[in-house]
């Protein structure tokens, strides 16, 4: 695969006047942003027909840095806003860039319902196990025992498996990678952007500042090594016993199906309504 230089991608897609970004050194959000832009570039998508939507959090700041139409909304609500944008103008392609707290805690309900409706949107989800922007509180994805400022003695609750949740709720495409799996990541985003309906690519992404520091992993390389240790590729996981998978996170492609998206369903609904009312000529 030929890779354009990062500078080329930057110059083509970022808002120069907004740089530098707010992201800390070693943060994984920039990498995931790069993957997303590369996917858009590889697919040759029209920049004017893509809208970026986000909620609140470090990851949600991404739409501000990219030169596209963008809606930076309220905490957790990005997909609800996206529903309005997409249904009001189905020609627009929507990318929702979200954090794990944003998507699965305060926005959990919008998340599962957007999937249930099969809203045509590609969600790029930054899972850093923490609330980065507010300084390192535990997120609903935090594995048991991980520390955050609101669980100083180690998380005692069970974590959400966001990708698993999305598969169960009916998403058309679901994949999870770490920022280290960049080729798989870019390919997954490309696939996600090419499909109708709800598509999700989740990335385990280092947050050395709010998360790593509190969990004895002060630098991004340490976090990536840890991700390598705790992740198991899907094919391998299938052969493992549940006990062996305890505390591990499976990565790979979890769903790839073609249920009709919300836009298509609504178009059919309009036709049905007109027919039932005898409006069809």
């Amino acid at each position: 695969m030929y890779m354009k230089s990062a500078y080329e991608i930057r110059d083509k897609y970022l808002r120069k006047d907004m740089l530098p970004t707010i992201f800390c050194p070693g943060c994984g959000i920039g990498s995931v942003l790069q993957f997303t832009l590369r996917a858009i570039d590889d697919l040759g998508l029209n920049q004017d027909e893509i809208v970026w939507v986000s909620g609140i959090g470090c990851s949600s700041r991404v739409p501000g840095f990219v030169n596209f139409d963008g809606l930076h909304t309220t905490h957790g609500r990005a997909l609800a806003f996206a529903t309005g944008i997409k249904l009001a103008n189905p020609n627009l392609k929507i990318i929702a860039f979200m954090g794990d707290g944003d998507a699965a805690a305060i926005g959990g309900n919008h998340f599962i319902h957007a999937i249930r409706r099969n809203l045509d949107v590609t969600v790029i989800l930054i899972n850093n196990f923490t609330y980065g922007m507010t300084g390192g509180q535990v997120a609903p994805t935090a594995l048991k025992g991980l520390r955050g400022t609101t669980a100083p003695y180690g998380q005692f609750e069970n974590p959400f498996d966001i990708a698993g949740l999305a598969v169960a709720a009916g998403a058309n495409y679901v994949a999870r990678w770490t920022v280290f799996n960049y080729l798989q990541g870019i390919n997954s985003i490309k696939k996600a952007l090419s499909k109708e309906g709800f598509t999700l690519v989740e990335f385990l992404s280092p947050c050395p500042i709010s998360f790593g520091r509190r969990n004895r992993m002060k630098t991004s390389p340490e976090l990536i090594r840890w991700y390598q240790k705790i992740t198991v590729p899907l094919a391998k996981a299938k052969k493992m016993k549940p006990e062996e998978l305890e505390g591990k996170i499976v990565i790979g492609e979890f769903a790839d199906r073609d249920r009709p998206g919300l836009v298509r369903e609504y178009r059919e609904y309009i036709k049905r309504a007109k027919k039932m009312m005898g409006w069809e000529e």
Partner: protein
Amino acid sequence: MRYPFPVGKSDFIQGDEAIARAAILAGCRFYAGYPITPASEIFEAMALYMPLVDGVSIQMEDEIASIAAIIGASWAGAKAMTATSGPGFSLMQENLGYAVMTETPIVVVDVQRGGPSTGQPTLPAQGDIMQAIWGTHGDHMLIVLSPSTVQEAFDFTILAFNFAEKYRTPVVLLTDAEIAHMRERVYIPSPEEIELVERKLPASEEEAKLPFGDPHGDGVPPMPIFGKGYRTYVTGLTHDERGRPKTVDAEVHEKLITRIFRKILDHKDEIISYEEFMLDDADVAIVSTGIVSRSAIRAVKILRERGVKAGLLKLNTVWPFDFDYIEELAERVRKIYVPEMNLGQLYHLVKEGANGKAEVELIAKIGGEVHTPMEIVERVVG
């Protein structure tokens, strides 16, 4: 264009139905909602009509999502509305503030019922006046309209869309369970009879680059809707004229918020509407809004028959509030009575407006019944 209901003639319909039909005639093509008594009939009517006019009607997972969806739809270029009642309106407050901050034209209908909390779901009240004006956080400005008849529910819905588009602002239509469920004769005009306002779009690249600027000097920036190649960034964070976040810059914040206030307050005369009944020579004034105004009109007539020089000021716009006009009124009359279906909300505004120039007395009633005319009369004659 074909309409799913008769136009250019009168019909005998409920308030909720009137609002739905008015919205369609106003050009609303996106409705998102969550069922709640006594607003559900608005949603049910929209669900029936919208697909037939190629619009969208969608049932969201809650009220937070409903208002979020209509804001999104508005940025995608659609005229959009949601409707709810007290508890749902509370859930919408965060995003109502977002709509104020991002200057998004939307219409939010709040069909008031008895509260607080789940309260009296089927009974009317006027307990959300404060919530409509000041429910969201931070300094903000929006428009609140309040009809007192089914015809007004229809007319003010069209007005609400026109104000929303003209001033790029959320507009709240504050009705109540009584108007929602009461049937009255309503004239449904044909489209040619209705004057519609459409939002200002950027006339040039230059204008599009300032989605939160003031290129026309009226405080209302043209709205670069999504998908036109303008690449607009919209954020609820404090932002400069170009839409770039400037969260710790006091000057930018002050400039933005004062413009959001100014674009509405500078056009107060056009936005604020009220009706006077027998107020010219009045000695006693009744100030009311919404459904209570109907009892108040009757009360004024009875009082006149009894030799009391009473008059009524019926407020169609609840916010912005014309404090100066109330002060003028207070200078002319001896006493002002404020009958309302709560324990005193409009009363506070009127009292502030009266500024001590006349005594102001609250005629409160809660529990789910509109004041009878005699209840008002008796309080006035003591």
